C-alpha cells in the first residue's frame, strides 16, 4: 500500500536515494543526492547487453528473474562504489515497480524490499514511464506544466506533465512503437540490431524522397500514431525491388532507410505540432526514450517546437537507466509518498489511468 507521510517530506537534506531499474532488457542502479547546491547524479550504471544483440539478430531480452537479481546485486555494488557511498548513507530506495517484463520488475521490487527492510529506510515504487517523463526536470530543472514525447522501443505517447503524479496522455501509438518499427525495418533490410542506430547510419547516404512510404494517421485528427503499416510498407518496397532486379544494392537499402526515417519524422513532427497547439502555456517540449537519440527525429521535433523551449536529455538519460527512477523517487519523497512491503510488481501500469484506450486499427486500416 502506498501512503503519504506529510511531516517527513522536505526535511531530510542532504538526501541520498538509491534507484533500481530492471523492467526492460537492462538492469540498472543509480545514486542521486540532493543537497543545498541541488541534485547530483553520483553514479548511474547500466548492465546493457548491446554487445550481445548483434549476434542474435534481435535484441536479447533478460527474462530470468534470477539473472536480473544477480545483476541487480552487482549493479548496486558498482553504483555504491562509483558514488563512494556506503549503504548506511542511503536514505531511501526507489524502484521501478512497473510496467515491463514481469520477471525483471519482480526481481527489482524484491531486491528493493530486502534493502529497505534491512536498512530500515523508505521504499518508493516508481512507474518506469514516470521516470522517463520526469527526466527533463532532472536535467534542466524545468517547472510544470510541460509536454513530453516518450518514444522508445516499447512506448510512444504524448504526455502533459502537471506534477510528479499528474500525467495526461494526449495521444499515443495504436499499434507498434517507433523503436520497434526501427528494429523491424532493420530486420527486413538485413541490417544489424538494434535497428535504431543501424537504420539511422544507413539513412545518412540515402535519398528520403525515393520511396513514397505512408504517413499513417495524418488524415485523422488528434495525436494518435501508428507505425505497424509503415513497417509493412518497407517490406513491400523491399520485395518489389527484389522481384524487379533480384536483390538490394547498398544504395537501395540506404534510400529505404532514409525514406522510412523521413516518414517517422514527418508523423512525429506533425503530431507534436498538434499536441503543442492544444496545450497553450508550457514550460518546455521534451523528448525522452531511446528513439530520441535519432538526430533526424530530433531536428524535426526541434523545428515544430517553435517558441517553446525544446529539450532532449543526454542519451544516457534518454535510454533506460536508474538515475531517472531515483529522481522520480526523490520527487515522490518530497511529496511524502511511501510504499510498504505490499508493493506489487505491475506488468501493466498506464501513467494516465483516465485516458481512453488506444483501440488500434481495425475499422479502416492504418494507412494514410
Amino acid at each position, binding site marked *: 500500500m502506498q501512503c503519504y507521510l506529510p511531516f517527513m517530506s522536505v526535511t531530510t537534506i542532504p538526501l541520498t536515494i538509491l534507484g533500481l531499474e530492471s523492467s*526492460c532488457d537492462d538492469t540498472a542502479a543509480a545514486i542521486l543526492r540532493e543537497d543545498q547546491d541541488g541534485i547530483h547524479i553520483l553514479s548511474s550504471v547500466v548492465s546493457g547487453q548491446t554487445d550481445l544483440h548483434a549476434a*542474435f539478430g*534481435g*535484441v*536479447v*531480452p533478460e*527474462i*530470468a*528473474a534470477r539473472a536480473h537479481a544477480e545483476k541487480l546485486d552487482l549493479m548496486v555494488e558498482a553504483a555504491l562504489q562509483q558514488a563512494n557511498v556506503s549503504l548506511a548513507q542511503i536514505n531511501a530506495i526507489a524502484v521501478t515497480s512497473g*510496467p*515491463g*517484463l*514481469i*520477471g525483471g520488475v519482480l526481481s527489482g521490487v524484491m531486491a528493493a524490499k530486502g534493502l529497505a527492510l534491512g536498512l530500515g529506510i523508505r521504499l518508493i515504487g516508481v512507474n518506469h514511464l514516470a521516470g522517463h517523463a520526469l527526466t527533463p526536470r532532472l536535467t534542466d530543472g524545468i517547472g510544470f506544466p510541460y509536454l513530453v514525447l516518450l518514444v522508445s*522501443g*516499447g512506448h510512444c505517447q504524448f504526455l502533459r506533465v502537471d506534477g510528479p503524479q499528474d500525467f495526461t496522455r494526449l495521444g*499515443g*501509438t495504436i*499499434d*507498434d*512503437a517507433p*523503436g*520497434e518499427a526501427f*528494429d*523491424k525495418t532493420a*530486420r*527486413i533490410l538485413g541490417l544489424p540490431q538494434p535497428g535504431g542506430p543501424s537504420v539511422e547510419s544507413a539513412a545518412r547516404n540515402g535519398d528520403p524522397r525515393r520511396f513514397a512510404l505512408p504517413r499513417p494517421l495524418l488524415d485523422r485528427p488528434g495525436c494518435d500514431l501508428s507505425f*505497424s503499416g509503415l*513497417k*509493412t510498407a518497407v*517490406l*513491400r518496397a523491399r*520485395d518489389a525491388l527484389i*522481384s524487379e532486379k533480384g536483390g538490394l544494392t547498398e544504395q537501395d537499402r540506404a534510400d529505404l532507410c532514409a525514406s522510412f526515417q523521413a516518414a517517422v519524422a514527418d508523423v512525429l513532427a506533425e503530431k507534436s505540432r498538434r499536441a503543442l497547439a492544444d496545450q497553450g502555456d508550457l514550460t518546455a517540449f521534451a523528448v525522452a526514450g531511446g528513439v530520441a537519440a535519432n538526430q533526424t527525429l530530433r531536428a524535426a521535433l526541434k523545428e515544430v517546437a517553435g517558441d517553446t523551449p525544446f529539450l532532449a536529455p543526454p542519451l544516457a538519460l534518454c535510454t533506460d537507466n536508474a538515475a531517472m527512477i531515483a529522481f522520480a523517487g526523490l520527487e515522490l519523497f518530497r511529496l511524502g509518498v511511501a510504499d510498504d512491503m505490499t508493493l506489487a510488481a505491475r*506488468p*501493466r501500469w*498506464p501513467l494516465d489511468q483516465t485516458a*481512453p*484506450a*488506444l*483501440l*488500434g*486499427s*481495425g*475499422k*479502416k*486500416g*492504418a494507412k494514410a
Partner: protein
Amino acid sequence: MTTHTPPIPAQDLPVLGRVTLKSAVATTELARRIGGVLRAGDTLLLSGDLGSGKTHFARGLIQTRLTTTEDVPSPTFTLVQTYDAGDVEIWHADLYRLTDAQEAWELGLDHAFETAICLIEWPVRLGDDIPVNALWLVFETDPDAEDTRHLTLRGKVDLPLARRVAPLMVS
C-alpha cells in the same frame, strides 16, 4: 515413465480450413468471431512473416473479449501482455526475441497454456515445447493485393478447439 514426443511441425498437420481476407477489417471480423468461441486452456499459434497480420489479428481478438476497453500494444518488447477478460486471462506473447525455449518457462507460459487463452506469435521459438493441442493460424501476404491475407488453419482434426474454430473459417 513419460516420454517426450516432439510436436508435429505445422506444415505436417492437416489443413482444417483456409480463408482469404481481403482487408484489415475482414481480418478483424474473423478475429472477433474466433475470439467468441475460445475458452480457458485454448492456444492459438500465430505464424507468418513480419507484416502478415499476426498482431492485428490478436488485437482484434483480444478487444472482442475485454470487458473494459484498454490498450492492446504490440508484445514485441515486453514479450507477453496479459489481459483480464472477465473469468479468463488472455496471454498475448511475441516470442521472436527468445533465444532458448527454456525462457518460455520463465515467462510462465506452461501454466498459461493450461489456464488462459493464449495467442502466441513466433511459436517456433518454443521448440519441442509447442503445445500439441494448439491450433496453428498461418498468415500469408498476397504479392498482388496489398491488403489481402491468406489464412490457413492447421491442427489435429479431433481437437474440440478445432471443431469450434474450423466452421468459422469463412470470409
